[in-house]
């Protein structure tokens, strides 16, 4: 079903230099997202998941690998050649307050999208802005208000309105809920779900909250220290997690039922500046063997659609 794939990432690499050190932010990350589906990208802080988002949307340049959007390799396109693709993919950030230009009214913020791409007449633009605000649940009569006059949840709605303004097909949500209150988070989840249904959107949903990711995603990718350690559809990942890191991650999530879980992760995530040799998880892994310290495991398909990068599981 290759033709259904909207975005495909192959062996993505990104290194940052920090003084003399090199930060291995993203290393050999590959995955596909099918049209109309949601890929949940999970990982702890420093796992490189936000860097992946910025690489895909070409806010930063890659150090290797390819990004293929709807069959076109956009990895090295010039800003000019990229412009039609910019229309088709958008991003929603974590902190809505800093994602909105404080000097513009929310109407202008959304209208900017049409001005940048020279779409519509003035009257049409005004009409679209009102329709978009309506769609995300903001009273259109507030279009002349400034971002600071809205609550965090409303600001995030405005960010979402901006993201869907150009009828983009693909939207990256980079931790869009983590700065919001619990009662507001559900509203935004619901909004994202409804918009996906209505507009057929494809999401890359980045989060550290596994429960939210489970709720929203069709398939899930787990990152650890810049590498993809497991990739699978949602059902398999949660019912049959294979990578030892995924297993500990899942057992760390607190639940309302509150059953005591046995697996606990020892130690701290190592620094991406000098990642460990071999498997990135080996210093903390309860199942570690000699080979894990020597060779980096490659992501392999264990059963249909379930990929794992672990020597032990692969045997």
């Amino acid at each position, binding site marked *: 079903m290759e033709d259904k794939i909207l975005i495909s990432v192959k062996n993505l690499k990104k290194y940052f230099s920090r003084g003399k050190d090199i930060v291995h932010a993203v290393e050999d990350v590959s995955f596909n997202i099918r049209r109309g589906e949601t890929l949940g990208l999970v990982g*702890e*802080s420093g796992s490189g998941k936000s860097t992946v988002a910025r690489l895909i949307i070409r806010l930063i340049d890659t150090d290797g690998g390819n990004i293929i959007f709807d069959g076109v390799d956009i990895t090295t396109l010039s800003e000019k050649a990229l412009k039609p693709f910019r229309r088709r993919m958008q991003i929603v950030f974590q902190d809505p307050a800093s994602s909105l230009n404080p000097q513009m009214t929310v109407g202008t913020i959304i209208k900017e999208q049409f001005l940048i791409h020279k779409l519509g007449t003035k009257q049409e633009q005004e009409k679209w802005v009102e329709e978009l605000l309506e769609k995300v649940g903001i009273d259109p009569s507030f279009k002349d208000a400034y971002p600071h006059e809205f*609550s965090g*949840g*409303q600001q995030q709605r405005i960010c979402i309105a901006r993201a869907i303004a150009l009828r983009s097909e693909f939207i990256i949500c980079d931790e869009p809920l983590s700065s919001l*209150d*619990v*009662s*507001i*988070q*559900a*509203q935004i*989840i*619901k909004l994202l779900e409804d918009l996906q249904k209505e507009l057929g959107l494809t999401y890359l949903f980045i989060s*550290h*909250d*596994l*429960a*939210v990711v*489970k*709720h929203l995603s069709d398939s899930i990718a787990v990152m650890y220290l810049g590498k993809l350690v497991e990739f699978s559809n949602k059902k398999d990942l*949660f019912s049959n997690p294979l990578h030892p890191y995924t297993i*500990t*991650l*899942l*057992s*760390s*999530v*607190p*639940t*309302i*039922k*509150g*059953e*005591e879980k046995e697996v*606990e*992760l020892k130690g*701290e*995530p190592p620094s991406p500046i000098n990642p460990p040799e071999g498997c990135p998880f080996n210093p903390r892994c309860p199942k570690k063997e000699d080979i894990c310290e020597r060779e980096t495991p490659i992501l392999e398909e264990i059963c249909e659609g379930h990929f794992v990068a672990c020597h032990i599981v692969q045997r």
Partner: protein
Amino acid sequence: MDLLLSIDNLNVYFYRSEGVLKAVDGISYNLHKGEVLGIVGESGSGKSVSVLSIVRLLPANGKIVDGSISFDGKDILKLSMNELQDIRGKDIGFVFQDPMSSLNPVITVGQQVMEPLLWHNLCSREEAYKRAKNMLGMVGIPFPEERMKEYPFQFSGGMRQRVMIAIALICNPKLLIADEPTTSLDVTTQAQIIRLLKNMRSELDMSVILITHNLALTSNFCDRLIIMYASNMMETGGTKDVLNTPSHPYTRFLLDAVPDIEVEKELVPIPGTIPDLINPPEGCKFHPRCPMSMDICRTEKPPLFPVGDGHYSACWLCGRE
């Protein structure tokens, strides 16, 4: 069980240029020795302020205008600053959300762990050093002796929070107040820290107040829960009772609005936004967002109605026969 802390009709106001903000609006609860109490609420619900008032740690524009607080037999509101300082850090330990800004970046970790002992003149320097070393070992810091010479920036986030816990516990407090201790940490580290707090509680036999916005976090740690919303107590009771048979619509909403990793469910978002606390709604603070609100909810503030054994709910629905 013996009573350790008793708060009665606490009212805390913040005086802002825009008006008076009722940060805590008439809250009463008790805490027994050895008990773990969870206070759950969203931002601005007054959950932190209600607890920081116990040691009168309030911003300059905040004032306790009414109520009484009795801790370990002492009337907190009548104590002098010196007497209060005796309690802070010695009888009551604190762990805050951000371990980086809570630690002094230019003093070694060892010194910071020893300091509460020295301030309160509890022991000699040598003794303090020994106790600090043991405490750091107890909170799970490997090679405590070496790491005592290091500075906070040399510790990871999770390790820093362990250091904070060591500082809070070094004087064997009767009460540990943990204000969102895991919010800035990753999931796996969060699990470690909660487990550590649990172990330390049983080892040192102290009471704990855990302030959090995450209901799930309380489920296997807290004995009792208080659910707060807009400066008011909405529901309180045993953790199991509150989570399994929630009686307040807000609590029910909280449970339905948060996805759970184990339960596949349709999310029911709470409509509307958190009210402006300077001009709060009349009656029940939750009524504008509550689908079950009745006429009385709009005009009169509901008292706590008993709904079970030690389980109370501030909702008029529970007050009807």
